[in-house]
């Protein structure tokens, strides 16, 4: 057990103890066939695909097996292309522990919501983190930048980020 002489223990509960227990639980995350196919297409072919609901026409990327509003199993795969329009962005400044690693996530980082030419919307990192720049990016065309094929592993990081399409 660890006797923590922190300010607040001294103030609120002098003489008491606290114990640190880090959770480090190894997990094997299954992709399932839908996410698996989506990630493999990115890894092998640098192609982003979405899945389309045959009832409501909604296109989702990454794909889901069932459309939440229609409750039907999705079957139609649509190529979305690697370019689109930036709809929204988010720049994160606050430090916090990344539950994927147990370490602090590096800030600032920016991610965006991009409507790809094929019709689906996807989110991923952006190459820019300056707010003033990103405010100009809204509504403009962005494209996905992939890792070299030999470095791609079939996970989220195979796409490095989206960046502004040069005029």
């Amino acid at each position, binding site marked *: 057990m660890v006797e923590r002489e922190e300010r*607040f*223990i001294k103030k*609120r*509960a002098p003489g*008491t103890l*606290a114990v640190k*227990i880090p*959770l480090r639980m190894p*997990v094997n*995350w299954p*992709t399932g066939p839908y*996410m698996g196919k989506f*990630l493999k297409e990115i890894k092998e072919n640098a192609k982003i695909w979405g899945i389309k609901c045959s009832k409501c026409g*909604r296109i*989702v990327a*990454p794909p*889901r097996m069932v459309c*939440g*509003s229609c409750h039907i199993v999705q079957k139609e795969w649509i190529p979305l292309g690697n370019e689109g329009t930036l*709809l*929204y*962005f*988010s*720049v*994160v*400044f*606050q430090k*916090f*522990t*990344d*539950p*994927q690693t147990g370490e602090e*996530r590096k800030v600032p980082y920016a*991610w965006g*919501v991009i*409507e790809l030419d094929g019709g*689906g*919307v*996807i*989110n*991923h*990192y952006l190459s820019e983190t300056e*707010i003033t720049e990103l405010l100009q990016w809204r509504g403009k065309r962005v494209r996905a930048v992939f890792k070299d094929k030999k470095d791609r592993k079939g*996970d*989220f*990081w195979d796409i490095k980020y989206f960046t502004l399409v040069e005029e």
Partner: protein
Amino acid sequence: MVKKNRNVAIVGVGQTYHKRRRPDVTQVELVNEAVRAALKDAQLDIADIDVVVHGNMELFEGNYQGDMWHVDGDGAYMKSGIRITTGGTTGGALVCATDNIVASGLYDVALCVGFEKMEEGEATGGITGMADPLWFRWMMSGALTGATFAERLGALTMEQLERLELVAAKLRVQLADNAVRNPYAHLRMKLTVDDVMNSRLLVYPLRLFHMCPESSGACALILASEEKAERITDKPVWIKDHVTTHLEDFVVGVITGTESTMRHCARKLYERNKITNPLKQIDTFEMYDPNVWWHMDWMTEFLFLKPGENIEMIEKGRTALEGDFPINASGGVVSTNPIGATAMLRVAEAALQVRGDAGEHQIPKEVNTAMASSFGGSTWTILHLLTKEKPK
């Protein structure tokens, strides 16, 4: 037409003094504080309770099935019980479940308790664990978000955004003023508009003082059937109705494409309860507002306002304590957020307003009908409707 088997009322309200940390107690003692307070308020003994419903978001403390450990503290020894954990809506879902249990006729007097000891875990890292580990978890930053804030509030130019930031700051100051009058609230600060506007950025455009704190605290409510409630107290607060609405989580594009769960939930509640003019027929609203941007956005969604009417209402002070439609007289979630208890605190505070027992933060006009909302996860919503008059 759906109807309860019998009416259910809140007969006891208890909460702890919410703080950033409680190193002087363990989770058991924290839960026990709220349970004692509720029993004292209802002037009941633990033996009078038939069933205990317990809940929190366990990822924040990292110990699972906490209800087993907390039997010592919440009086569930040899009683029926359920555990509910539904993310941010946990407190509200606890009240829904307890209301359903008592309305069913299976139990007469029920205790529900929600709590969180946030300092034992990590809030932002924990909430991030809600997202899909293969994709969005790499981007999500807990409850801190900023995308679509300005757009949804109609601010498309820099001038509009500046006006919005000013209104957000004014709203925050108003809520802080309310919290100062609430002895149980966590953040009770004398804030100015400049303090809010100059606070540091968390996630653009969300600033530190726009956002709720991480609080440690507990809340307990005692619900009783119609017959028992009228014997236990002369000020029962009737739970007239509650509605829950869910959405698929984190499907990007759904944010913009479909109707919000808030609007959908409100519509259902109003239809079922013949409310055509919420601003007139409801006296006060305890909204679950994780940050002031969402507070402004959801005013439109819950109350069916016209575009821009929400900003006008705040600028004119209509939602302040003395206004004609006070929202969050308790200070709201931006002042106090012990996550497992927070949604229950909205119901508790609404109940106190109906009873006239909210002390310094009691709204000056008479409260016959109060509404309380819960929010969680990726926009799940619960609405509770409380009345002074017994529903027929």
